């Protein structure tokens, strides 16, 4: 026990109480000193000594100004006088960056609370000090990491966008000149050469779809969404109209129940429905493919289900199909870019909903997604910024 305040010897009970207080004082992880009106430290604890690097004996020679950086000492004295005139319990230097100075002259960031204590020997201030070096350090690390993440995210967005654009120009040339070859020299070439030209053209088309989907995906990140009232009945019917040729060719049935009007970005919701309905028809070998959409009002959101009687998906792929570039089939079996469902997931997420699939191979699939009743006070592009 190291106190520089002599316990009274006259009253054993008081002396014991003071002993308890000093123990309690020393046990605190917070550095504490009791300062008198002469700016002298009349009591200190273990945490204070180890924080500032002073031995108990040295402390009685200190004034509190010795504990603050040289530059602010004149101000600090003024603050002290002011405080003594109007003593209230409060944090010191609210909003300012405070530093303590150790015995070796090194400074470190601190948080300080002041509590006035009226004693028989006059007004004292109980000063509680917390060393916040570690917190500051972690805050800095966190800020830096956040910044780096933001930058890399931004770069990634830009990269996808620019890459998609720049990939298109040579593609147009390749497909263009392949067409010229076919048109101008096709009759001079043998079947094999013509087949090769066809393959070039087909590959270009595939690449075009891929780049387009990639652009759509990266646009979801880049562009701000606009929320409006979107009638899903209307969107569904528009999608159905736009794929009427496929529906006719496949002798398919595409229908819906009465759907609600939701809040969201209409063009994104259109894309969502289009991708899900088209998938239902595409991955389908039934003589009559059937795709239907239903809506259920749940407690906090709408639950939508798009059901098909297609080929279905094995359980192990139920999560992975929503990842970008994840394909379960070769181009020859089913053509596609592997971006469609990733786009769907992104759209639903941006609308604060969830998307998942329920499916058994050979028995069709049910794609479920939720949308909140209202998007009010929610920014659709939160995760983008």
């Amino acid at each position, binding site marked *: 026990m190291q106190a520089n305040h002599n316990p009274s010897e006259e009253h054993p009970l008081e002396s014991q109480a003071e002993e308890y207080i000093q123990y309690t004082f020393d046990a605190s992880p917070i550095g504490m000193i009791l300062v008198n009106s002469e700016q002298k430290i009349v009591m200190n604890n273990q945490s204070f000594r180890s924080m500032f690097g002073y031995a108990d004996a040295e402390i009685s020679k200190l004034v509190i100004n010795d504990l603050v950086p040289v530059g602010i000492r004149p101000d600090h004295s003024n603050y002290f006088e002011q405080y003594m005139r109007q003593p209230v319990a409060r944090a010191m230097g609210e909003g300012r960056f405070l530093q303590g100075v150790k015995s070796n002259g090194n400074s470190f960031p601190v948080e300080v609370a002041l509590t006035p204590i009226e004693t028989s020997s006059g007004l004292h201030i109980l000063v509680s000090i917390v060393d916040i070096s570690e917190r500051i350090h972690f805050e800095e690390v966190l800020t830096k990491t956040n910044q780096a993440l933001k930058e890399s995210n931004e770069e990634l967005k830009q990269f996808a966008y620019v890459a998609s654009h720049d990939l*298109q*120009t040579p*593609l*147009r040339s390749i*497909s263009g000149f392949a067409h010229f070859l076919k048109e101008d020299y096709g009759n001079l070439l043998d079947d094999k050469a013509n087949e090769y030209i066809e393959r070039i053209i087909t590959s270009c*088309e595939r690449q*075009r779809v891929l780049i387009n989907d990639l652009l759509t995906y990266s646009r979801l990140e880049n*562009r701000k969404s606009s929320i409006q009232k979107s009638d899903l009945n209307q969107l569904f019917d528009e999608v159905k109209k736009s794929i009427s040729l496929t529906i006719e060719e496949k002798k398919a049935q595409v229908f819906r129940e009465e759907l609600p009007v939701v809040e969201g970005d209409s063009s994104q919701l259109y894309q969502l429905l289009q991708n899900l309905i088209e998938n239902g028809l595409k991955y389908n070998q039934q003589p009559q493919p059937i795709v239907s959409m239903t809506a259920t009002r749940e407690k906090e959101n709408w639950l939508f289900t798009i059901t098909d009687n297609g080929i279905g998906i094995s359980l192990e792929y139920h999560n992975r199909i929503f990842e970008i570039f994840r394909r379960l089939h070769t181009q020859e079996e089913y053509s596609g870019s592997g971006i469609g469902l990733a786009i769907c997931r992104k759209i639903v997420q941006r609308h604060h909903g969830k998307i998942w699939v329920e499916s058994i191979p050979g028995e069709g699939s049910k794609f479920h997604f939720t949308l909140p009743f209202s998007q009010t006070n929610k920014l659709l592009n939160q995760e983008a910024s």
Partner: protein
Amino acid sequence: MKIMKAGRPAEVLLVEDNENDVILTRRGFEAARLAVNMHHVRNGLECLKFLRKEGEYQNAPTPDLILLDLNMPIMDGREVLAEIVADKVLCQFPVVILTTSAEEQDLLETYRLRCSSYIVKPVDFIQFQRVVEELGNYWFTVVVLPPES
């Protein structure tokens, strides 16, 4: 050949740095059976010289229509469009932006500079050809262009 509104072949200046796109565009006009004399420069600076008939372009014809790519070296499409618009003489030329960029920012910026149209080059060649044909049909058989000064 189709009948041109001007009663003579149309003079088109294509400002484009990609040689392949130049060939594709030329071919598009041919396929459209339009009487078009297509001239070609590789960047904005050359475009301005052509329009002002400077240096090697002394004998260049006055174009009826400028097809302007946006991303080019030396002087890009945005810069040259700004110059054309600010020039009392050159501002009469219709300028159609023909670019791969579908970026909203490019669209807004060039429409603010009063470009006559903004066309995103389709990646698919067949569609590209169709766009060039329609472009030619519209500008040379439908639209009345300013008379030669």
